[in-house]
């Protein structure tokens, strides 16, 4: 059975490898000069005064795709919450407080605000320099978990009202939808970047609705990551099965 499976894998893998190599040899050369879509995207982004072209593609030219990505994110988090909830045959045992070496504790408490500010900076400057809601949100969520590393899970739980993050997650998703529907009410297309003035190139308020959509995504990703990690931490640290029942 296992031998058969390995043979099947070898044959299938070899076939796929041949096809992939043939396709690679037929692709346009790496580093070629012809990028028609890219050139047009850069042009459109500059017309709308967005310095970071990637943010412009994400939150303006292809904002509808980002809506799809965001719903996958939301659905995945929802699935995790359902799968990792506390079942009836489980109970919570508060973990013993951990002893952490003092330098590590100091480092964690010192870096936590720095990381949080960096996360917010990456979100806020998304339309100017490299960064944006997706990256900054993850950084901000990771920053919060320095409390777990520097102290213990109890300390993290005290500053993390989970319900608030779940609400924020949902609110951010609806904010994105409302921002998308607003242009429809104004008579243009869904998620069209026509409502706000484009502003001065390379300033925080440039790009029309790009900074707002960016901030909504940042909020969504940050609270989604916090909720995800909270449920994994609950499972790994607190929740235990009933024994001998």
């Amino acid at each position, binding site marked *: 059975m296992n031998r058969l499976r390995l043979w099947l894998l070898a044959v299938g893998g070899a076939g*796929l490898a041949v096809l*992939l190599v043939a396709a690679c040899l037929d692709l346009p050369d790496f580093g070629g000069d012809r990028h028609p879509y890219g050139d047009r995207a850069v042009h459109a982004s500059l017309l709308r005064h967005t*310095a970071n072209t990637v943010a412009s593609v994400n939150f303006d030219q292809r904002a509808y795709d980002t809506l799809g990505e965001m719903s996958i994110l939301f659905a995945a988090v929802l699935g995790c919450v359902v799968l990792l909830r506390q079942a009836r045959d489980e109970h919570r045992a508060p973990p013993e407080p951990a002893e952490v070496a003092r330098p590590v504790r100091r480092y964690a408490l010192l870096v936590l605000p720095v990381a949080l500010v960096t996360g917010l900076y990456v979100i806020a400057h998304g339309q100017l320099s490299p960064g944006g809601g997706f990256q900054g949100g993850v950084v901000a969520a990771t920053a919060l978990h320095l409390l777990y590393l520097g102290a213990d899970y109890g300390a993290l739980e005290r500053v993390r009202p989970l319900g608030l993050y779940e609400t924020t997650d949902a609110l951010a998703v609806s904010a994105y939808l409302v921002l998308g529907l607003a242009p429809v009410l104004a008579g243009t297309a869904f998620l069209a970047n026509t409502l706000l003035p484009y502003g001065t190139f390379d300033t925080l308020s440039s790009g029309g609705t790009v900074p707002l959509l960016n901030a909504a995504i940042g909020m969504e990703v940050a609270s*989604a990551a916090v909720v995800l990690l909270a449920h994994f931490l609950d499972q790994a640290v607190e929740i235990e099965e009933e024994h001998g029942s």
Partner: protein
Amino acid sequence: MHVLPYLVAAYLFLTGCYGLATSRNLIHAVGCLAVCQSATYVLLLAVGYRDGGTAPVFSDIRPGSRPVVDPVVQALTLTDIVVGATVTALLLALVLQIAKRHGTVDPDELRELRG
């Protein structure tokens, strides 16, 4: 050099598939799937690269002063990475659920359990 990045992407994908098929631990399999995912990132970015180009971010250079690489594939990859991480989390949650219901994370033992 002309095809090396594409070949590396294909290699990453095949290696990940091999790991997935021969894995004896579901958590390990999820890690292998992450390797497969990285193949798509490498392929997409390799398609968008331009020799001598720089990032299409104009906060520190003047627009038009230097050739830039393709921003469209970068935008695709960037969202893919974060969404990929949450999908990994969803799969890990499924693995934990399997461990709870069946008491094992070995796919072969799981098949025997089902009979």
